[in-house]
Every structure is written in C-alpha cells, then in structure tokens.
C-alpha cells in the first residue's frame, strides 16, 4: 500500500483522454472505443478486463497506432505518452517510439513471429531499428536477451526458427523482442491465453520480474480475472467500448460496484468454494452495429436495470476515493441529459 502512495505524486507515463476509435463499416463510423480516459503511472501494472468484443484490443492497438489502415482510425482524443501526443504523430515519428519506448506482446505466439526468419534475425531487427550497433554486438545482445527471458541454450536458439520452439518458448521470445530496447511501457494483449497453466505461471513470473528490473509500466489485457488478481495494481473493466469501472485491484475484488463487474466475478468457478451454480450474464455483448444509441450499454443484460438506464447514459464518476464507476445506481449528480 505504501508504494501506491508514492505513485500518486508522480506524473503519469501514459494519459489517455477521451479516446474514440472508430471502424468504418459500409461508410458509417462505429465507435469500438468510446470516450475512454485513463492514466498509467510509472512502474504500474494496469489490468484491462472484459468479455471479447469489449474493445480491449482495439484500445491497445490505438495506443500503438497499429489499427488496420483505411478501416480503423482514432477519431478524437489524446494519447499522451511521456509528454507527447501519439495520436497526432506521423508514421515515421511513431516508428521511432514504437518498439523502443512502447512495445507490445500479442496473444498468439504462434502467429506473431515470422516463420521464415530465425529467432536471432527477428530480435536483431528491433535492435538495428533503434540502436546504432554492429552485427556482432547485436548478436551478442540477442543472446543476452534470450538468456534474460529464461531460455536455456540461447546460443543455439538464436539460430533456430519459430516452429522449432514450444508455445511457452515462443512467448518468451516475443517478450525478449518487446523488451529489447527497454521500453517504458509494455502492452501485453492476452499474453498467456494460449498457454497451459503451468507455462502461464512461468510467463507471468517472468513478466513481473522484468517489470521490476526494468522499471516499466505494463498494460495487461486479459479476460482471466485470476491473472488480474495476481499481477495488477489497478484494473479497468470495459464493456462495449466504454470503461464501466476503474479502481485498485483489492477494491475491485472485494468491493465491486458495477453490476457487470459483480456478475463477471461471480461467473468464474473458484477452487476454494463449492457452489453448485455459477452466476451468468444473459445475452451477449452487442455488436458494433447495434450498440444502444442512448442509455447504459449494459442495461439490457443488467439484472438491476431501472427504466432510466435505457435513456440516461451513465458517466464514469469517482464514487469512493479513486474508485470510478459508470452506473446510475451510484451516480451522485443525477439527473443528466440523455444524450451522449
């Protein structure tokens, strides 16, 4: 808890303000990320949770400026990283930051490595792009990096191809590439979803260790609440492109406010308990093209929905010292305009 206090004084490393990311479907823009604002402080691990289709990945791609060209774009808002607005940068400017100060690990270690290049080549590519080093040095550095992510026989692996490695090893290589230039911010998009629990434990341990040694901040995107409880300092719960709750990890698990968070927590089977039935959420996340126009986007699945939930859009508000919730049940400054 004491570390949390000291974090408060520092300037944020990343500040996302009113981010709106839209996808063009048949000539109409649909917001996959709608008015999202949050902070990441130095050395903080921020978890982002939600069902699939909630905009978690789109949000991280927006920060990295990696949205599919011509289809997705950041419509408005600011992404201020270390004092610079990433949303306003040109491609060549962002290339200098991407992979160096901000980098990303993807979900599928099978598909995110190039099958026709050696592990060493793919590692050195990042080093050549951002640092002025010789071939010899780059190779030595690549081997050192592989060693630092816990790969045995790095001198051998550096000349091997991705298909020769197991899933856990490939994810370690991805982490090695991501941390090659010691970034200040690492975005990990479902880094352990494709892995077995025992390997997941290894990878999470590794990520934590690297985060401490390198003093990085991490945005950890996952749908596994167990991983969040284990890793994160702060948690953002997203639903249908909006943040519905944001608080520190302890409060989220012991005093969740938003009905969506409560249901999500009740839906996981727990090893310690022997309940017969799990709570479940009726229905599914609305697709981009049929988002409710007004009101709370969760209203039609919410067991606590009130009539005004369908007309008044809740705003993310601080309800309890840093515990932000977007739900009319907790809103203090009612009533509000029904327009978003």
């Amino acid at each position: 808890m004491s570390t949390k206090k000291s974090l408060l004084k520092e300037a944020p490393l990343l500040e996302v303000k009113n981010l709106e990311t839209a996808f063009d479907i048949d000539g109409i823009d649909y917001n996959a990320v709608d008015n999202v604002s949050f902070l990441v402080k130095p050395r903080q691990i921020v978890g982002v949770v939600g069902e699939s289709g909630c905009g978690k990945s789109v949000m991280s791609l927006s920060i990295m400026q990696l949205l599919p060209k011509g289809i997705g774009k950041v419509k408005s808002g600011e992404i201020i990283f270390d004092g610079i607005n990433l949303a306003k940068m040109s491609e060549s400017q962002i290339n200098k930051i991407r992979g160096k100060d901000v980098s990303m690990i993807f979900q599928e270690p099978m598909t995110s490595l190039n099958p026709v290049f050696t592990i060493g080549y793919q590692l050195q590519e990042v080093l050549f792009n951002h640092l002025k080093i010789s071939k010899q040095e780059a190779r030595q550095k690549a081997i050192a990096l592989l060693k630092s992510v816990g790969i045995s026989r790095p001198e051998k692996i550096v000349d091997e191809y991705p298909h020769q490695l197991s899933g856990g090893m490939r994810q370690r290589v991805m982490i090695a590439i991501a941390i090659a230039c010691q970034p200040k911010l690492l975005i990990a998009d479902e880094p352990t979803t494709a892995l077995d629990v025992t390997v997941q434990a290894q990878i999470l341990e590794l990520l934590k260790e690297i985060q401490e040694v390198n003093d990085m901040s991490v945005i950890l995107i996952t749908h596994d609440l167990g991983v969040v409880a284990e890793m994160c300092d702060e948690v953002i719960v997203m639903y249908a492109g909006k943040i519905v709750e944001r608080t520190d990890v302890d409060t989220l698990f012991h005093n969740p406010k938003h009905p969506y968070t409560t249901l999500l927590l009740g839906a996981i089977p727990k090893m310690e308990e022997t309940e017969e039935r799990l709570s479940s959420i009726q229905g599914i996340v609305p697709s981009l093209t049929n988002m409710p126009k007004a009101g709370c986007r969760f209203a039609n699945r919410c067991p606590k929905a009130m009539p005004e939930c369908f007309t008044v859009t809740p705003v993310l508000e601080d309800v309890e010292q840093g515990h932000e919730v977007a739900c009319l049940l907790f809103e203090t400054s009612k009533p509000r305009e029904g327009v978003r």
Partner: protein
Amino acid sequence: MSTVSVHKNQEKTSSQSKNLLEIQNLKTYYPVKGGFFKRTVGNVKAVDNISFEIKRGETLGLVGESGCGKSTAGRTILRLLRPTEGSILFDGKDITRISGKSLREIRKDMQMVFQDPYASLNPMQMVGDIIAEPIYNFSKKSKAELKQEVMDLLNKVGLPEEAYYKYAHEFSGGQRQRIGIARSLALRPKLIIADEPVSALDVSVQSQVLNLLKDLQEEFDLTFLFIAHDLSVVKHMSDRIGVMYLGNMVEIADKNLIYAEPLHPYTQALISAIPSPDPRVKKERIILKGDVPSPINPPSGCPFHPRCPMAMEECSKTKPLLKEVKPSHRVACHLY
C-alpha cells in the same frame, strides 16, 4: 417418471455393475512413419497405460497440460481411434475390438461434445438438420416426429424454436456450443464425453454452458467424462478428478481430496499454478522448469522425473504404478 425409476432399479439389481465405463491398461500410440519406404520408425505414446472407471451418473474430470493425451484418451474410449492395447468395458460390454454393426450400435450410447463450436458444426446445414441427423440415422421416425423431437431438444438447451431454420454462423459461440450439446443429447446417450467444451468461450458464457450441462445431467441421468485444462472448471463440474501427464494417469481422487491434499508433485504444481481470483490470497507457487518432454521419447522411469522438484534416484529407473494410498485416492509416485 415412475417407469423410469423402476427401470433404473432393475438395472441396478441386474447383472450390471455400478461402473458404466471401465478402462484397463489402455494404450493408444500413433505410429511415426519415416525413411524411404515410410516404415514405422517410432511411436507417439499419446496414451500410455491408463486405467480408471466411471460410475453411473458420475462426472469424471480429466486434466493435464496440452499434449498429455486427454483428448486421445477420450477419443479412444469413443472408439474414434483404435486402442493399441488394453480394454474398454462400456456398460458391461467389451468394446475394445468391436467393429462394423456392433460398433455402430454402441455409438448411440456414447456421444461427444467438441471443443471448437465453430468447427464442429456443418456451416451448410440448418441447425435443425444438424440435430436431427443422429436421430435420423438410428430410428425410423416420420418427419413430423423428428421435427418435434428437435424442437424439444432446442428447448432443453435453451435455444428458441426459430433456431431450427437458421445456420450455425448466425449464432454466437455459446449458442453454438448449445447446438453441439443438443446434437449429442439427441440419441439419449448414457455417456457424454465433453472435450474442452468451454475453453473457447468467455467467462460469462462459460458459466451458462456449465450450468446447462449440470442441469441436463440431472434431467437425463447422464454420465460425463469432462476433459479440460482449466482445473477450477473441472473441479466445479466433476465428482472425481484424474490428472494426466505425458500419457499417464498420475493421480485420481475425489475432487475435494485432490484439491485439499494433492499427493503427486505434478498435481501440486498444477494446482499452485492457477491464479487465484483474489488479490489477498498470496500463494506459495511451485514453478515447474522447462516444457513437457516429447511423447515419442518419454523419459525413463517416472515420466515426470526430469521436472520433478522431489525426484529421487529411483524415479529415473522404475516407473511408478497407480496405487491406492488412501481410500479412493490413487497416485503413481515413488514417494508414497
């Protein structure tokens, strides 16, 4: 209802045993072909000598890392694969070597729910036809009867009747899994093998499907073999849990026993690796080194000994056998 219960009582008193399924020393190897003449040069020992039984109405969970042979075991029991050795007793009948007509007959009583609800449904068929196909194959029913039965099934798994005329792509993952479950129920089987039925689903949808499976089990008196890699899901669903490692069953016990008191070092590591959804719980974690070895060349002795934190000299020499160390708690480890 009364006739059903009478029938059940008869079953119990008659020659049939308590166990619906008994597996003994089952082995399934996949041959590795190589060389100029494509001769068999080795074997992938996917399932290497497992034995267990499932009682009527019980759910046995099977857990283990990917590549440990859980799915192969499930498929061999269904006789989708030919066992290399051992015996499978289903409902008192030896089905290890049967084929042709008698195998087809037995298929009615055992069905499977697959992992990937996107790949296991035919995209060109209407949902109604997908569910009707098993019934159509095994009984002579009129079209109207068939349709009525499919409607009932749709109802049972919580899908609207309109679903009959739709195609698989019009449904979400959870709904597709419901279709797969309806199809597996169509012939009123005795045993359902569910191979990772929820691993492709979101937590919120996962809980719906798990609840549904539990309800159906009660309603239709089903026996489940529940295969999954997620220990907490398996614990929620099962009465007993078997832990597999590299084709071997290393521990099998009542679910509460296995969680409260895991005996095998691998089970201990597996349970400690699960992230707890409570930040206040600080667990002592056993982190295993390295990866699962290749099943083509499994290590000598105990398959787990190269990664085992408690390995002794004996472990690399002799393979431990699954033996009962406590009432209804069997473990294959030299420590006990």
